[in-house]
């Protein structure tokens, strides 16, 4: 019964997706919205990276919704895993092997610096807040692998996450009063193309998003790590 049902569902999904893929020709221009964003993105937002100008400039409200979903998921994970097995205070820091310990201590500031570079230059090169935040969280993961028993300061991580989420909304509300008088309008000068201080509020939003995603994903890793013995 169950196998027959799964075969029917697979066949329906295969026929549906196959027909959709064959009807869409590969490599031909399909929409006109993308052409509009490519042509007018430089003048209207000032960013050199068109994907950044779509994510944070033209469709910034969707990014605010995504940041909210990320926040709710991290909150739910903390709530699910916290009961009946909480933290037992500060334990002894037990190091791993020498190569892992020395390597993680050497690499952690460099990985954090690289992550900060990625989310600071989101409007000039490929990158942005989400990628930079994930790189910073990978640095924290390396720290967990290197020294067993060391935990991230949870209060500092929570404060950084909440303040950066608040900063995103406050930047949007400032756009409501000055500038174009709608939520998340651009109130900073656009500046010259391909320089660091350009593209209006896009670097500010991406700095807030980078801090938020980095501290959130390292909080998720910290929730799942467990002490054995």
């Amino acid at each position, binding site marked *: 019964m169950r196998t027959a049902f799964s075969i029917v569902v697979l066949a329906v999904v295969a026929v549906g997706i196959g027909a959709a893929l064959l009807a869409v020709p590969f490599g031909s221009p399909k929409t006109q919205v993308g052409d509009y964003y490519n042509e007018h993105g430089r003048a209207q937002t000032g960013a050199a*990276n068109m*994907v*950044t100008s779509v994510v944070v400039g033209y469709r910034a409200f969707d990014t605010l919704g995504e940041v909210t979903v990320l926040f709710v998921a991290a909150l739910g994970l903390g709530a699910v895993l916290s009961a009946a097995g909480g933290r037992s205070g500060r334990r002894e820091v037990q190091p791993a092997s020498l190569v892992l310990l020395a390597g993680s201590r050497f690499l952690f500031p460099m990985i954090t610096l690289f992550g900060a570079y*990625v989310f600071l230059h989101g409007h000039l090169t*490929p*990158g*942005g807040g*989400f*990628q930079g935040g*994930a*790189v910073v*969280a*990978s640095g924290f*993961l390396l720290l967990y692998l290197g020294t067993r028993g060391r935990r991230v300061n949870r209060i500092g991580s929570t404060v950084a996450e909440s303040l950066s989420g608040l900063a995103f909304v406050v930047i949007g509300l400032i756009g409501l009063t000055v500038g174009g008088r709608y939520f998340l309008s651009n109130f900073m000068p656009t500046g010259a193309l391909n320089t660091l201080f350009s593209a209006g509020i896009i670097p500010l939003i991406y700095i807030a998003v980078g801090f938020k995603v980095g501290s959130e*994903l390292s909080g*998720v*890793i910290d929730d*799942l*790590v*467990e002490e*054995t013995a």
Partner: protein
Amino acid sequence: MIVVVASLVAVMLAAAIAALVFRDLLSSVIASCPVSLVASILFLFLQAPDVAMAEASIGAALITAVFVMAIRRTSRYEE
């Protein structure tokens, strides 16, 4: 060029089938890591460097680490 793309797609599908077939949960999770990695390379061939960077850092590194930590807290076999 098409030979490179076709062989990368074949590696990706083989890794996904390996994640389906393996009974050891740790091997199954490690077999899902090349799927993410080759998908990141294919995103680069499709002229999407932002998406490639996001998939490589999030999909290949953080998801696998989260899976391994969850397997460590539950059972490893029994599939």
